[in-house]
């Protein structure tokens, strides 16, 4: 058993201190990174509660319910930012990427603390598959929001649609890696393939947008 709250505090304290020495988009990124970590912890609480209170087994809950809970939880801070601060698409990118990266980092930390990091292959899978998957779903979600905004159709249907695509991608990954063999290899490769695809269709991540912040 690990104490996830203690791990969160340990990682978050230097980040909080770093806010004193950063400005604008770097600060925004750090705040969204920490938000991602907090959201990860809350998702674990909710998923755990659902696993106990429904007829799902622990494995079934992690395959079928976790993607729903995790994507909704990741999506809420980004949606809050989207509607309350009305950022430009360029400003929304670092927020979403920060939430996704924070979520993935904290989840990886907890998994590695509970399972050990002696096996390099396992650590690489966690980093390249699960870690990238959380990032990719957020990037895809923001791309969906940007498209909807471009066509001036930001509506309930649009937001649910963008969220459902992220959820289904996450669910598909969890389902594929739940069984050993070829399906799990497809599952592990899926996030990286999707990340490359998103990059190729024109999404340029945060690079270059915060040189003047320190």
């Amino acid at each position, binding site marked *: 058993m690990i104490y996830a709250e203690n791990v969160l505090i340990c990682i978050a304290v230097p980040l909080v201190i770093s806010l004193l020495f950063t400005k604008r988009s770097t600060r925004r990124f750090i705040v969204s990174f920490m938000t991602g970590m907090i959201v990860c912890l809350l998702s674990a609480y909710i998923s755990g509660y659902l696993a106990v209170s429904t007829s799902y087994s622990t494995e079934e809950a992690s395959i079928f319910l976790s993607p729903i809970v995790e994507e909704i939880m990741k999506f809420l801070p980004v949606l809050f930012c989207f509607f309350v601060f009305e950022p430009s698409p360029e400003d929304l990118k670092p927020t979403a990427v920060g939430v996704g990266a924070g979520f993935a980092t904290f989840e990886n930390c907890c998994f590695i603390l509970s399972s050990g990091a002696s096996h390099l292959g396992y650590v690489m899978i966690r980093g390249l598959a699960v870690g990238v998957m959380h990032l990719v779903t957020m990037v895809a979600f923001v791309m969906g929001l940007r498209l909807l905004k471009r066509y001036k159709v930001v509506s309930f249907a649009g937001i649910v649609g963008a969220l459902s695509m992220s959820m289904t991608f996450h669910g598909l990954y969890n*389902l594929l890696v739940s069984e050993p063999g070829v399906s799990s290899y497809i599952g592990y490769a899926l996030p990286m393939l999707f990340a490359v695809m998103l990059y190729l269709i024109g999404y340029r991540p945060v690079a270059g947008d915060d040189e003047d912040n320190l």
Partner: protein
Amino acid sequence: MSDSTLIGVILTIVQVAVLVSVILPTARAMLRAKTTLISVFFCFAMGCYLFSDLYWVAYDCLRPDTRMPFAVNEFSECAMILFLSAGLEKVLKDERKIAWEIIFSFAFVGANIALWIFWSGEWVQDILFGIPYVYFLWLLIRGIKSRDLLPKIERAGIVLLSFLILALEFVALYSEKMDKTMNIPIAILTFGGLAWLLIRSIKTKDVFLAFAFFFSSIMAMYSFADLFYNLATAANTVALPLMYFSMKKERDKDDLR
């Protein structure tokens, strides 16, 4: 994997191929700025449906012949219906705020939801994810009526047929002995109605009739298992290019609304 599931997987893979061939030209047209809002919503809706189909294929291959629990693909299907409804809203020219059609929509989809709950016992998700179908059906009926796509006698016929099918399904539900025997007349009526809608939508190439055919095929998929489910899936696949061509016709009528 049973034969029925195998056929289901093959049909879903075919549907994935059809979906890709529908999404690509729609997305290409969007990039060339030849866009109406219905085509934007249609493209998103088909994207959601594609994800849902991929999930089904993965599930059926990894856990064949087991009932899928509540999973993420339900959200995708719900989002698809919401997107299609949003698209239809943009082309519907019916100023009436309250119409009798909403009563029919509630009654028809409500009865279907009741049947789904009896069959599956999953009442929360059946109600929650069934509600968008009420709105979708309401828009379809208003569109068909406002554009005068079907004569009054045919509209009355389809209402009667819908309630007859529902009545037979409830009879089959309550008399377990008749369950198997009732399946055949229900299937004849359902697929007869689907064939009639298919002919009508091919003739008119109207977006409301094509979408109505798609809606009916989904309802048929939810009502049957095994052979008839696979038949309904095939009808659902046929509906996709029909929807695409009708949407294209609508797009060509008028640029960005």
